[in-house]
């Protein structure tokens, strides 16, 4: 495995000079070279951490059959993304994972330039002959934690620390509040967009502001464990994001939604090696093990655990879908009619906030 970080490249020309040497490492010709472009660093304990775990699962499962290159700190957007993807392709990687929504346009462009390289883009919607997408149904996990929040919140007001107003995030807060309102019909979710995925001090400050304004449950759609750590100190129930954050909130982190990318990475690499890969848009959830709910904290009462498990089980056997109508939007107009369920296309382009959400857009 070769590890290249953007930081090392910046730090000195030494690392940069070493780059062209990489294609020269042609030890095993049959090895599938796999490249990963990371949004941030595995040390974020959130989104990139989860992708890195998936990459490590791939290495552990396929061993000598793959050679993995990871590029950290590629960023969410900008010219850097395109450059990194192109560099990875030029270095001989035959399978490249672009791991955040903002990498979409660069993935489309670079995949057209390298028709013999297979690209997979996480959470996007554009495909090509050699470009597939993959995503996980995180909203299923948010429906589970929303159910817990509905039971645990005395005030009936929760705070949602959000990153950017993209469909994925809107979908997440909608699923959370819909589930909570099935328990407590007056439940209110205050949401705040921080315009960043990772700024521990700001995430902590936002959690503090929510708590000061009366929220008694905190949940986050940003990546650092700072809000969980703060909630642990203040005794406010909260939920972990992307990875198991129980270590930061032994008492107050009720459960975490874990992104489990390993199975998809292994499956995809095997398909590429076997020559059976086809561009697809898999969107797997709790049922497939792509979204994991960590064991509930002991502080969650048994009846609440049972209610959460019922939601989880319903999503596994298909009897329950959180986006089944009737659902009203935040201004009280009909959003989803009774008896209908939003299809995947509607979910992936969701921009409507449901009833019970207070947010500055």
């Amino acid at each position, binding site marked *: 495995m070769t590890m290249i970080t953007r930081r090392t490249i910046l730090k000195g020309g030494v690392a940069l000079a070493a780059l062209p040497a990489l294609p020269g490492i042609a030890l095993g010709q049959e090895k599938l070279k796999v490249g990963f472009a990371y949004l941030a660093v595995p040390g974020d304990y959130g989104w990139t951490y989860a992708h890195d775990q998936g990459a490590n699962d791939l290495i552990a499962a396929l061993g000598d059959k793959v050679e993995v290159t990871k590029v950290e700190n590629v960023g969410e957007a900008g010219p850097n993304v395109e450059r990194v993807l192109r560099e990875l392709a030029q270095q001989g990687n035959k399978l490249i994972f672009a791991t955040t929504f903002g990498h979409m346009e660069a993935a489309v462009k670079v995949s057209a330039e390298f028709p013999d390289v297979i690209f997979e883009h996480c959470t996007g919607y554009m495909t090509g002959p050699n470009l597939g997408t993959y995503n996980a149904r995180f909203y299923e996990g948010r429906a589970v934690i929303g159910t817990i929040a509905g039971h645990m919140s005395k005030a009936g007001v929760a705070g949602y620390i959000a990153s950017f107003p993209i469909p994925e995030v809107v979908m997440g807060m909608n699923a959370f509040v819909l589930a909570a309102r099935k328990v407590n019909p007056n439940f209110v979710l205050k949401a705040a967009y921080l315009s*960043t995925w990772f700024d*521990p001090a*700001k995430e902590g*400050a936002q959690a503090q502001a929510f708590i000061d304004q009366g929220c008694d449950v905190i949940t986050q759609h940003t990546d650092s464990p700072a809000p969980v750590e703060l909630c642990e100190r203040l005794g406010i129930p909260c939920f972990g994001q992307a990875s198991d954050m129980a270590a930061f909130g032994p008492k107050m982190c009720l459960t975490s939604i874990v992104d489990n990318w390993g199975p998809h990475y292994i499956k995809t690499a095997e398909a590429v090696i076997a020559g059976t890969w086809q561009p697809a848009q898999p969107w797997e959830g709790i049922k497939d093990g792509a979204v994991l709910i960590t064991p509930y904290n002991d502080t969650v009462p048994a009846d609440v655990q049972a209610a959460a498990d019922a939601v989880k089980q319903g999503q596994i056997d298909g009897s329950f879908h959180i986006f089944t109508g009737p659902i009203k939007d935040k201004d009280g107009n009909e959003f989803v009619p009774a008896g209908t369920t939003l299809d995947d296309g509607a979910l992936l382009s969701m921009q409507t906030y449901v009833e019970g959400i207070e947010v500055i857009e």
Partner: protein
Amino acid sequence: MSAEFLVAIVYAIVLVATPILLAGLGELVVEKSGVLNLGVEGMMLIGAVTGFAVTSLSGNAYLGVLAAAFAGSAASMIFGFLTLTLSANQVATGLALTIFGGGFSALAGKSFLGKTVPAFTQLFPTELATHPIWRVIFGYSPLVYLSLIMCVGIAWFLKRTRAGLILRAVGENDLSAHSIGYSVIGVRYLAVAFGGAMAGIAGSMFSLVLTPIWAEGLTAGRGWIALALVVFSAWKPYRLLVGAYIFGAVMTLEVHAKAAGGVFSALPSEFWAALPYLATVLVLVIISLRRGSSSGAPACLGRPFIPSA
């Protein structure tokens, strides 16, 4: 609006303002001696990881802060050697120090990911420190009180002491200071070391007080705000104090506006996120309009001193 809520807001402002105040005070002294060290962010990160590591291993947060000060100081000596002894370009070296600090702290912190550290013990009796009203005075981390003491101390040092006068002389006219026998390079080394120590302590405020965790890039650009604050303050410690609290107030307004919604919804969330930076630009404009000819900047700021020249 209840008194408890007001206290909560003031409390949040003070916490947010303290690290930029600490780092800003250090940089102010450095710049007063005529040196521009843009590596504040890097030294803060090195301080943050060192403070966290030492606290995690020793269980003593005070020891952690002390170690953070030493680590920040040690990092600043790299800058000092390059710019003072070898007369390298200060801007480029400072930027390199920031990048180095980011990479070094990430490497050093690898084994501390996912850990937490014990919090600081309160300075004051628990009844006062956790009282819903009195915590606004007695409930802070010791680093907050340290930042205020340092502010008064530095103002006094620069204005009232002989050593402070020498430091300012070195920053205003290095050749004159040199010709009457003061060691320009020596004074600047001391100032740079002090600035590094303050940045290290500021960094440890992040990893030990604000968010007692270690994560890569924990300080998220606050070092640059500290640098802007020094210009904003026109190199005056008390004005730096006011500036830090104004900045803290704007950052706190941002998160509270987003949490409150309601009337604040009239403006998009991007506006609230940009507010601290808009405020910085606005104040800089006002200051430069009012200041007229005298900029307040030390005359030798950023100029290397080569004694033989």
